[in-house]
């Protein structure tokens, strides 16, 4: 049944394409007419081009002679090369400083570091942020270098310089630019593509500080590691889709740390108990951390944009050593090992009002994260506990909105929570159940130009520290200036 109807359609198509096929004579006449028209047209075009040339010449002359304020003196004669021809590599610097006050006589940053949760238990490594002080603070200064290396690769370097002079390599990676089929490969040290905020640097945040969910489950700077990433933009009609796979080393992440040594002493200086037993395994071969993420965005037209994503991260080795004997000599030193995993979902909506200075624009973002660590006791001062299972679970979310209430002015509101689920389970059931910490934040930003931003932020938090509720009010007054090449911002 299908084939005949196809033929009919095909025949109809051919007939409609050649309606004059019936009459050969007509065709001939038509052809001649077209040829004549074409000749006449070409003559006319040639004449017009001549006129164009003479007109161009005369304009140049009059412009050269004129005293016009918009004179051609400014008109450079040579064609300009492409984008960003001025600098190679493109370099930009971001200066960031805050005036900080809190309602706890400067103890706020310490309280935020000590929020009850599954990752608080072991000592933090890596970043040295320099404790935020009441008063003036210079935050990390960010330096960014980027350029095309060849027709095949782009390279990007981001480093930060702390107020005390400490230099840290935040990102150093290459991207391919010539892979087919919507594929892109990145290698080096970089911010993982999971979630929405993870890939953003502090100067791209809508608030001064990191949200509680990221802070407690990924760390203040998010998930940043060394490895390879493959991204694929498949053909999915009107939708934009992005799939990513990352193979990362799994170094010093809150749920992916390897190479911890079996304890040989206690923080309080005493010797380990005679009953100590077990050892922590050696470092497994990397990459030890895998992430998978997908982002989807329908085309909602000119004014609206929506993107949502889901992601997961799995570590094949995670080790942590707990030694609280410094604060509590009655506690026991122990080490755990196993695997960690994290999943999350991220949602972003933007409304572009098409007015000056972002007036009327709306941006809403929300993410949920959930972290699980499946560990076993590998070392304990009470050796008979070695081999016992411990399951750590914590989740968190943030919800934030920004509104451009006047040109170059933005108001932002954020609610962030960590630890709605916040528990440690042993073989016989729940060992510990911790309460969540919550915070409300209000921010007022003013962009003086594209390159200078000032922000006033006020937050009210109810934190849980050592099982006790701590109220914390914080005020920030921040400036951010960007120098050098004109950066582009992510969605």
């Amino acid at each position, binding site marked *: 049944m299908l084939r005949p109807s196809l033929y009919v359609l095909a025949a109809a198509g051919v007939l409609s394409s050649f309606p004059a096929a019936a009459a050969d004579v007509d065709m001939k006449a038509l052809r001649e007419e077209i040829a004549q028209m074409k000749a006449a047209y070409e003559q006319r075009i040639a004449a017009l081009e001549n006129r164009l040339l003479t007109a161009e010449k005369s304009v140049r002359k009059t412009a050269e002679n004129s005293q016009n304020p918009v004179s051609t003196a400014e008109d450079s004669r040579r064609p300009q090369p492409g984008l960003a021809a001025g600098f190679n590599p493109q370099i930009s610097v971001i200066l960031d400083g805050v005036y900080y006050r809190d309602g706890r006589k400067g103890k706020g940053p310490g309280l935020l570091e000590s929020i009850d949760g599954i990752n608080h238990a072991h000592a933090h490594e890596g970043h040295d942020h320099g404790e935020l002080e009441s008063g003036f603070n210079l935050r990390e200064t960010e330096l960014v270098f980027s350029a095309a290396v060849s027709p095949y690769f782009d390279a990007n370097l981001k480093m930060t310089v702390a107020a005390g002079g400490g230099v840290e390599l935040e990102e150093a990676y290459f991207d391919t630019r010539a892979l087919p089929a919507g594929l892109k490969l990145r290698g080096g040290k970089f911010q993982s593509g999971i979630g929405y905020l993870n890939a953003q640097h502090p100067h791209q945040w809508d608030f001064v500080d990191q949200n509680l969910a990221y802070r407690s489950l990924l760390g203040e700077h998010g998930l940043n590691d060394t490895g390879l990433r493959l991204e694929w933009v498949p053909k999915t009609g009107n939708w934009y889709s992005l799939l990513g796979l990352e193979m990362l080393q799994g170094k010093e992440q809150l749920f992916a740390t390897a190479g911890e040594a079996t304890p040989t002493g206690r923080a309080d200086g005493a010797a380990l108990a005679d009953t100590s037993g077990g050892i922590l395994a050696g470092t497994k071969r990397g990459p030890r951390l895998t992430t998978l993420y997908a982002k989807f965005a329908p085309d909602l037209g000119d004014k609206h944009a929506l993107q949502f994503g889901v992601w997961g991260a799995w570590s094949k080795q995670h080790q942590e050593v707990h030694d609280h004997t410094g604060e509590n000599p009655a506690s026991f030193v122990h080490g755990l090992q196993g695997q960690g995993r994290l999943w999350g979902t991220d949602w972003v909506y933007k409304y572009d009002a098409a007015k*000056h200075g972002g007036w009327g624009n709306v941006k809403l973002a929300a993410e949920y994260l959930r972290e699980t660590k499946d560990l076993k006791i590998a070392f304990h001062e009470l050796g008979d506990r070695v081999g016992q299972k411990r399951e750590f679970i914590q989740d968190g979310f943030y919800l934030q909105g920004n509104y451009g209430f006047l040109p170059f002015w933005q108001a932002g509101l954020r609610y962030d929570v960590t630890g709605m689920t916040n528990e440690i389970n042993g073989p016989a059931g729940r060992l510990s159940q911790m309460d969540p910490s919550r915070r409300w934040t209000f921010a007022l930003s003013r962009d003086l130009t594209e390159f200078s931003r000032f922000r006033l932020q006020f937050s009210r938090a109810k934190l849980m520290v050592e099982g006790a509720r701590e109220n914390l009010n914080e005020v920030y007054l921040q400036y951010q200036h960007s120098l050098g090449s004109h950066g*582009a911002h992510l969605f």
Partner: protein
Amino acid sequence: MKIIMGICLALNASLALALDVVATTSSMGMLAREIGGPAVKVVELVAPERDAHSLQVKPSMMRALRDADLLLAVGADLEIGWLPVAVGGAGNAKVQQGQPGYFEAAAQVSLLEAGQAADRSKGDVHPAGNPHVNLDPERMAKIAAALAERLALLDPAQAAAYRQRAAVFRAALAERLPGWRGKAAGAPGAVLYHKDASYLMHFVGVPVLGYLEPLPGIPPTAAHLQALIGKLQGKRGVIIHAPYQPASGAERVAQATGWSLASLPLEPKSPASAAAYFQLIDRWIDVLVASRQAP
């Protein structure tokens, strides 16, 4: 019957081979449509009533660029705040900068205000030059010729057709140039919000009597407007701003000077044809000329 079907399939295949062109602005889209004709499919990223400089990247842009054969940008840093990210997220080797599938209009012509010191104490200065070339009919003619060559490079089978269409477009422009210039002659001048119509003013030889922005990218300040009003006393002209630029400063100057005030788009309505582009130039010139009769 089989032969007919074969022909139909071949016709379909040739249609499917149309070049996918992603243009940033509607005047770039107009060029692609005029020069490419039926051999191209055009998608525009920036709606004509929007500021192509301060736009933010959207996933739908990456989606459009994913399958593009040619990216047609204005260039000279106009789209720098979002286009690099859109290209980066598209995973398309063809439209990377430096590839034949990456075309910048501003790179095909000489630019006004080029070679200024890269000193942002002078505002949002673009050392490459003023990127707003779209309102200059002469430069657009040159860009059209360059675009035809680029399309010919990407699709040699249609090369003659691209060149032919570019010649038609240039001829249509050339035909109008003397009329535009003649009509605008003697127009007293205009105050602009931003240096986004410099090329048109330069083209018709009508002086820019001032800018509402004290420096490029810096919103009008009371002091600057006061000084501007003082400078304009006793002169005649018109105040022009784009629809997305705030009218308040312009209104203040209009009130103080008695000049008329116009909100004019910088881009033709989308999807634009050459006729729509010509109408846009006509509209600008009509406004410039109207102030000749004004008190």
